[in-house]
């Protein structure tokens, strides 16, 4: 059960709260690139959490695969998706207008006032 105050408690609390906050930010972020960068940061913090749980093997794997390679793959996937039209309706955050995303990205960029 909960053992009360111990050395490193503050450190653990910081990791846990940062993880929860980052997890929320990743899910709430609408921009894929930012969400991926947050995901990589999340992976590195999860690795720290594994170290605190005395599981250095999993920490190594998490840092290398979870944060590193998955992050690189996700960035690539986002890069691939960028050139294509959205398969679902996308709301323009500025005008509020919905489009089904059949336009070419370069046309929509000028029509929507450019990307922010």
């Amino acid at each position, binding site marked *: *059960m*909960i053992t009360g105050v111990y050395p490193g408690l503050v450190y653990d609390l910081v990791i846990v709260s940062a993880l929860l906050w980052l997890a929320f930010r990743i899910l709430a972020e*609408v*921009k*894929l*690139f*930012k*969400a991926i960068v947050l995901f990589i940061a999340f992976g590195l913090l999860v690795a720290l959490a594994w170290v605190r749980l005395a599981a*250095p*093997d999993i*920490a*190594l*794997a998490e840092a*290398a*695969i979870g944060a*590193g*390679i998955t992050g*690189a*793959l996700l*960035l*690539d*996937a*986002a*890069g*691939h*998706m*960028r*050139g*294509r*039209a*959205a*398969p*679902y*309706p*996308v*709301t*323009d*955050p*500025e005008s509020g207008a919905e*489009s089904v*995303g059949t*336009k070419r*990205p370069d046309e*929509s*960029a000028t029509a*929507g006032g450019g*990307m*922010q």
Partner: protein
Amino acid sequence: MKAVDALPKSPLGVRVVAGGVCVAFGALLIQATLAIPEGETGLAPLVAERLPESGVTNAVTACLLNFRGYDTLLEIAVLVLAAVGVMAVGGSHASAWKPLARQADPILSALTRLLAPVMVLVAGYLLWAGEHAPGGAFQAGSLIGAAGVLLTLSGYGRPAWVSHLALRAVIAVGFIVFVAIALGGMMVGGAFLEYPREHAKTLMLLLETWLTVSIGAILVSLFFASATPIDERTELMETDRG
């Protein structure tokens, strides 16, 4: 903003329900975690007792490659299947390892030339350390994979002396060696995946070495297949910087 670089926001009601389900599930997880009794539980005492028989002194390595070798065999099989699948749908450059970047940034190239050998060295260390400390084939392999990704991003392509066939062979070799060792144990009278006691350490090291090479190649090949040329990548970063 119509291209898929941002996700659509769901209606408020959906978000409230999803949030509620997440909070309830989180509470369940916390309760389950607190219910775990403290101290030595599960199979840890059994593993500690049998550790001298495994050929290694690191309990995690002993579990992964000896006690529960079957799981690891299936894991590497899944990785090989993933690489094959990605190559099948990835088109022409899936296994090609073409340089993605123009050889543009001399600082990045120079840094990569320094870093890549160090990463291979650290991978070798992790592989060797796995016998008695945290480390082993998966960690070492993912470092090799990361070195490959870094090389690709910095504009270094596949060296001419590495043929496509060689790359595919390296992807498969870890699984093949694993199956060979597993069957070899049967040949000398043991069970499937049972190592002869006196050769356990040698066999596990041999196996881990080939697994490391294979895992590295698999992870890099996953990356090539989906890789975006560097020009699009920088564009992506610039447009998202707002």
